[in-house]
């Protein structure tokens, strides 16, 4: 696989704040990479550095084989010459131009014939299911429609790389779901390298081929959605990904290789690690029974939250609280005694000091 974007040791500072801190990253051709993180983690700044709208302080950026930014060489190619398209959070459709003009603005720069432009506009609108909207002004359309036009505007000039900066965050929940389907489909059909910025983990998990999770200007983990979910590289990632949140417990590894949580023990793969650790277990990796079972740990149902398709159960034992996710509507009553079994393979252990995943 060839590399579509290569970033070497990129740093961007705003005054005393380091928004992007020495980030190196290869984005493979045809991949859908999501930059995920809480607000202020530097994901948007990193994206803007790629576009050229922001000049980094240090480092290098290649798009394809072309060096577009280098602090050492003093090179920074203007955004328009980097062959990429960007979809903005608030669409950024030019309000004084009709859809057609919005879409042909970039094409005019390329000195394209009118017939070709017509065809491009038609095709792109069809692609986002907005055929026939050429003569609308942006304000005459709903938010969801505007977002589709913003997407079509990018498609029309066929950039090598698609960049999207929280494109769905201004839409309501339902439209967001629809657009997720469309965006994933679009990536599948066009095969274009896509870099997508979001703070919404569901968007990241559902659409991406790769996720880079950022915190304070540093990439914490770059991996497939599956790996990120099941083997978070740090406690921060583990805590950030997953809804309901992952259970985090403090414990000590005993001689038998089990993790001692206090009044009970959890089996886990401890490798060669000894002493204090932090243990995580996803809510769906715990099974509940209302009768005592072998290896079951006795808890009390503190609160039960059925939500139709699944239910969350908050269980307590002494000062330990666990969240469990169960499919279907839960019949357990509050304050009832329950017995929990923890899937040993799903338990991850983290170093208490560094917060890093223990793998060997």
């Amino acid at each position, binding site marked *: 696989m060839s590399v579509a974007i290569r970033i070497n040791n990129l740093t961007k500072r705003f005054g005393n704040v380091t928004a992007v801190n020495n980030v190196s990253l290869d984005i493979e051709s045809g991949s859908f990479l999501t930059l995920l993180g809480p607000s202020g983690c530097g994901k948007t700044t990193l994206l803007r550095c790629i*576009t*050229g*709208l922001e000049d980094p302080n240090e480092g290098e950026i290649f798009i394809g084989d072309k060096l577009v930014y*280098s*602090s*050492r*060489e*003093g*090179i*920074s190619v*203007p*955004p*328009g*010459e980097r062959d*990429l*398209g*960007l979809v*903005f*959070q*608030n669409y*950024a459709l*030019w*309000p*004084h131009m009709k859809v057609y003009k919005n879409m042909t*603005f*970039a094409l005019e*720069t*390329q000195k394209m014939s009118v017939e070709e432009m017509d065809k491009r506009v038609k095709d792109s609108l069809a692609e986002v299911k907005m055929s026939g909207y050429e003569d609308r002004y942006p304000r005459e359309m709903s938010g969801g429609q505007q977002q589709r036009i913003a997407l079509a505007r990018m498609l029309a*000039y066929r950039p090598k790389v698609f960049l999207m900066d929280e494109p769905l965050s201004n839409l309501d929940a339902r439209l967001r779901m629809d657009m997720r389907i469309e965006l994933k489909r679009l990536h599948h059909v066009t095969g274009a390298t896509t870099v997508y910025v979001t703070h919404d983990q569901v968007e990241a998990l559902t659409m991406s081929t790769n996720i880079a999770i950022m915190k304070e200007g540093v990439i914490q983990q770059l991996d497939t959605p599956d790996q990120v979910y099941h083997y978070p590289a740090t406690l921060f990632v583990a805590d950030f990904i997953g809804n309901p949140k992952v259970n985090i417990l403090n414990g000590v590894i005993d001689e038998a290789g089990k993790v001692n949580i206090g009044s009970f023990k959890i089996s886990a793969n401890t490798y060669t690690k000894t002493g204090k650790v932090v243990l995580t277990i996803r809510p769906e990796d715990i099974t509940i029974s209302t009768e005592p079972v072998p290896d079951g740990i006795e808890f009390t149902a503190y609160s039960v939250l059925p939500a139709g398709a699944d239910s969350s159960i908050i269980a307590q034992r002494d000062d330990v609280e666990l969240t469990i996710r169960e499919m279907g509507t839960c019949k357990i009553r509050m304050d009832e005694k329950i017995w929990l079994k923890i899937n040993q393979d799903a338990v991850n252990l983290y170093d208490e000091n560094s917060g890093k995943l223990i793998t060997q």
Partner: protein
Amino acid sequence: MTVSTIPKDPLSMQYRARLRRFIRWLRSPQVILSLIMLAVMFYMVIIPLYRMLITTITFSENDLRYAPGAVVGQFTLFHWLRMLTSKIAMIMTFQPLMHSLTISLGATTLAFLIGGSMAWMVVRTDMPGRKIINVLAVVPYIMPSWTIAMAWKVLFNNGTAGGVPGFLMFLTGTAPPDWVAFGPLPIIISSALHYYTFYFLFVSAALMSIDSSLEEAAELSGASRGRILRKITFPLVIPALLSGFIMTFSKTMGTFGGPNILGVPVSYYTMSTMLRSNTTMLAFGDAFVLAIILILFSMTTVTLNQKIVGTRKSYETIGGRGFMAQKTKLRESKYILTAITVTFQLIIAVLPLTLLIISTLMLHSGVYSIDNLSLAHWIGASDVKINNGEPGILLNPAIWRGAWNSIRLALFTAFFTALLGVILGYAVVKGRGTRLGKIVEQLAFVPYVIPGIAFGAVYISMFTKSVGPIPPLYGTFVLLVVVSVAKHIPYSSRTGVSAMLQVGRELEEAAAIAGAKAWRRFWRIIFPLTSAGFVSGFLLTFITTMRELSLIILLVTPSTAVLASMTMRYIENGNEQQANAVIILLITIVLIGNFIISRFRGGSLKKGLGV
């Protein structure tokens, strides 16, 4: 042996990288525009100020008349000593300064009382007729600032300084006392009635932007109405009051029309009229000393005020965002209040114009009878017995030339000012947070605090000789345009900035990514989206330039005379009725211009004022 550190780049490479970065910085549009604007403002403001200072410390040929032993071109403190320490310093400098301050502070206070209370009533009470009050409040601003002064004279003239008795004397048979007819009191009142518009607009915008929950919270805690007004509302509108203060103060410090009409006849000189009398005697060195003192005084006052309130925001004013404010109930008194306010507004808007019109229809002024009614001042043929032989103004080619000059000047000034406004807005908004952007923004503020007449004086010294490639401009029409544009830079920059802030950053970024170069981005995206601001700036400048007098009075020549300056010449020649007719003509042109321009793209006078 291994080397673990990365070798440093060779020096040549570091320099190459730095050079490339510098070139890129230099080529970015906001830097280019900022540098152009810096050059323009340097040429239009800084160099003239410097030349003016030099003139005050150098002997010139004109000084040979009264400075014994002067050598032309030699350094001297003669002018400063003469104006500040000699026997005539009292009459030449200190008295006029005191008079100017009296008038400025008096007019500012009075304007604040009128405009502020009117704004509060309109925004914060349930009094009826708020719409009509709003409209009428802008009317005085459309009239030249000295209109009311002229009408005052028509009404109150008591013959002390010559001329014919006014209406009041005719009606009552007794002459009004001197302190009513001339001097500080009428100047203060006539200026305040013109400038209260600023206070009204600024304060009502500020009041509208206050979230009324702040006041409701105070009310719930048991505070009385008066206490809320003093402790909550008032502090919140202080920035707006300050902008009103700065604007009115710096305008009245340099105002020429009123003091010339109502002060000079009784030898009540202000800085502006004294400055004028010095320049007419070609005593430029002395005149410029006065100008510099005036500028320093105005600047210090403005800076002090900003220090005290501790914010530069005052200049930007609070944007008008409409909250549903809770209105104070006035009960029965509200109709009386509306009646008083509207009557007052009509009096100051309509009465002066009526008086002026009537006076122009009287063949001989002071003769109040039906047979005396005549259109001679408008369309009468030249007659040696009236108006020193000048024909009626509508038959006078000089008037038409003046009208054409006025319109031309206003249009050119409005166009260049609005253009500069858009450019400045772009440079300032894009350069926010950079040192260059800050310098541009601050430099653009400078003309704001230089009183009009002093600003005009600055340009006498500048353009009597050629500067670099620019030929001497004194006495040309171009100079009038240059000075008017320069004086308007602060306003245009404010309009430009607020228009530019409305355009989301990403709209331009989207165009940049689409491959549009700076020039195309500007004309295709930025400019169309800021055009309402452009038109508003255009309209405001058009109106203020049409009736601007203080700024250009020192610079006009007979061939470049505009209507505003012609009224002054007529007054000084004793043809007051024709002067009044010219004012009416001027106001008519302004109204027509206002009507036409505001048809375009939702431009409005209020928007142009940045409220």
